[in-house]
């Protein structure tokens, strides 16, 4: 076992003591240095000394993404600039970005999280790791880079883009691990096929470290079956660290959360009450070690569940369900709540459908228009219009059975939908608000 994995197996009792000790340092620190937090605690009438047990954390106020926007650029930064070592920013789709200044120690904690995920996937210093996440303000590229470097891997920092060259390097340098978004890997696979490169025969690729966008088990099965690699899920968010907050374990259907750094809670998104393990709700994190921009009870908007029971791998860190939906991804179409991930799961049940699709919503004066464009695979294309109509019908039935709505299904040619080198956008909502 790699020494970085040692904390993964910490006895629960010891872990809880450690978490409490860290929280009892963090909360007074945050209260002292961040005006917004202090004001909200005062409004609630709660003082840092009120934190006597882990359960007392529930007395403290939440933080949200809008706080990061409102306090942009440095309102939530707790450390002086002399201690800051790095900025990361997330663009945000609307308006102001969010900015997360970090200390050198914060970056080290983040690195530790990624390295522990990779070690859990079975990646060792013998691996050659290609990092095809974007480098820069986005945390994906540098996060994967640091984690792999910490394990002693040979790192190939290709960044995103220039796909044909990436495939050439993957072949020539004997790359065994690729880190990128699942949608970019699907794009890589298409380009590789065009170049006549078979991942199984022509490369040594055996692991994929995928994250930065929600993806379903169905897409993961597609990825594994087309490439023969093991597809691993790495979870994280810039607000909390970057990738490496949690990673999936080969022994269970979920992700171990590195609870010694990131304290998880599940809350009811409506009432904000803390829910017991086993119940689904919104995932909330407190950064136990961070000092640059600490987050106390940060609402991720990701829907998940903390599982009960012990994982067979022996890790004591709790397991969260794969995040298949972000609460603000939810679409309301004709009054029905629909998650894009549900649609993806339906589409992937039809084998002739390629893993590329686009959900488009628009509105006329009277009603919403709901259309799903799906690419058919080159193999499934038939000269027979009736066969294609039949396929369209089957796609419609698959969607209709699960979500109860009848979108317009449009079959499009392979390769015609936009591809992404970073986070892919699969929903276009042009409805009048």
């Amino acid at each position, binding site marked *: 076992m790699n020494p970085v994995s040692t904390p993964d197996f910490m006895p629960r009792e010891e872990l809880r003591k450690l978490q409490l000790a860290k929280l009892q340092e963090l909360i007074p620190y945050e209260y002292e240095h961040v005006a917004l937090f202090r004001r909200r605690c005062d409004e609630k009438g709660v003082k840092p000394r009120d934190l006597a047990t882990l359960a007392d954390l529930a007395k403290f106020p939440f933080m949200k993404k809008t706080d990061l926007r409102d306090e942009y650029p440095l309102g939530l930064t707790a450390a002086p600039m002399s201690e800051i070592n790095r900025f990361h920013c997330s663009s945000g789709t609307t308006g102001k970005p969010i900015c997360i200044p970090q200390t050198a120690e914060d970056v080290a904690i983040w690195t530790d999280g990624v390295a522990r995920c990779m070690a859990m996937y079975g990646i060792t210093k013998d691996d050659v790791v290609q990092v095809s996440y974007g480098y820069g303000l986005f945390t994906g590229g540098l996060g994967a880079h640091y984690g792999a470097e910490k394990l002693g891997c040979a790192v190939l920092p290709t960044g995103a883009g220039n796909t044909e060259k990436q495939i050439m390097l993957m072949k020539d340098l004997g790359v065994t691990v690729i880190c990128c978004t699942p949608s970019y890997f699907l794009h890589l696979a298409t380009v590789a096929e065009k170049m006549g490169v078979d991942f199984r025969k022509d490369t040594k690729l055996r692991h994929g470290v995928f994250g930065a966008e929600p993806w379903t088990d169905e897409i993961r099965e597609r990825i594994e079956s087309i490439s023969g690699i093991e597809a691993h899920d790495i979870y994280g968010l810039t607000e909390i660290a970057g990738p490496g907050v949690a990673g999936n374990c080969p022994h269970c259907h979920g992700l171990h959360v590195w609870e010694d750094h990131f304290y998880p809670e599940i809350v009811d998104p409506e009432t904000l009450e803390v829910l017991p393990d086993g119940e689904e709700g919104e995932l909330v994190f407190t950064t136990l070690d961070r000092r640059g921009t600490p987050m106390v009870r940060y609402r991720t908007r990701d829907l998940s569940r903390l599982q009960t029971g012990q994982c067979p791998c022996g890790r004591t860190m709790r397991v969260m369900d794969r995040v298949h939906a972000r609460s603000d991804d939810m679409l309301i179409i004709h009054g029905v709540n629909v998650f894009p991930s549900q649609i993806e799961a339906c589409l992937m049940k039809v084998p002739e459908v390629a893993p590329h699709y686009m959900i488009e919503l628009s509105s006329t004066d009277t009603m919403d228009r709901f259309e799903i464009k799906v690419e058919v695979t080159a193999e499934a*294309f038939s*000269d*027979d*219009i009736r066969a*294609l109509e039949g396929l369209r019908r089957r796609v419609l039935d698959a969607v209709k059975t699960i979500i109860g709505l009848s979108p317009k299904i*449009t*079959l499009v*040619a392979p*390769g015609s939908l936009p591809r992404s080198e970073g986070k892919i956008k699969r929903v276009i909502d042009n409805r009048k608000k």
Partner: protein
Amino acid sequence: MTIKQISVFLENKPGKLAGMMKALADADVNIVTLSLANAPEFGIVRVITDDHVKGVEALAKAGFAARETEVVAVTVPDRPGGMAELTAKLDRAGVNIEYSYAYSLGHADKAVLLFKFDDNAKAEAALASA
């Protein structure tokens, strides 16, 4: 006689056919005849070329969903009743026509049509019989 055609899946959008034609032109493939069929949301373009192997290859390389399919070329007498005789034979054999388009017209006293039958071999046998 069966001949090879290239079938291509295209979206019903301006510019899509132009892209396909350019891919064939760039590969120096000549089009002998062409047919466009459309469903509400997509179209199928069928072409007979002077080199279907090179044609399919060029289209696939340019990212089109293209495949080789077979159609039957049938010579029809260019006079009243020519088509009626042909369809009567097909009817007796229980063969269905999926689609048809012209290969060449106006050749003195006969026309050549291309057919895709639900069973090409059976259709050919039926047409060959007296």
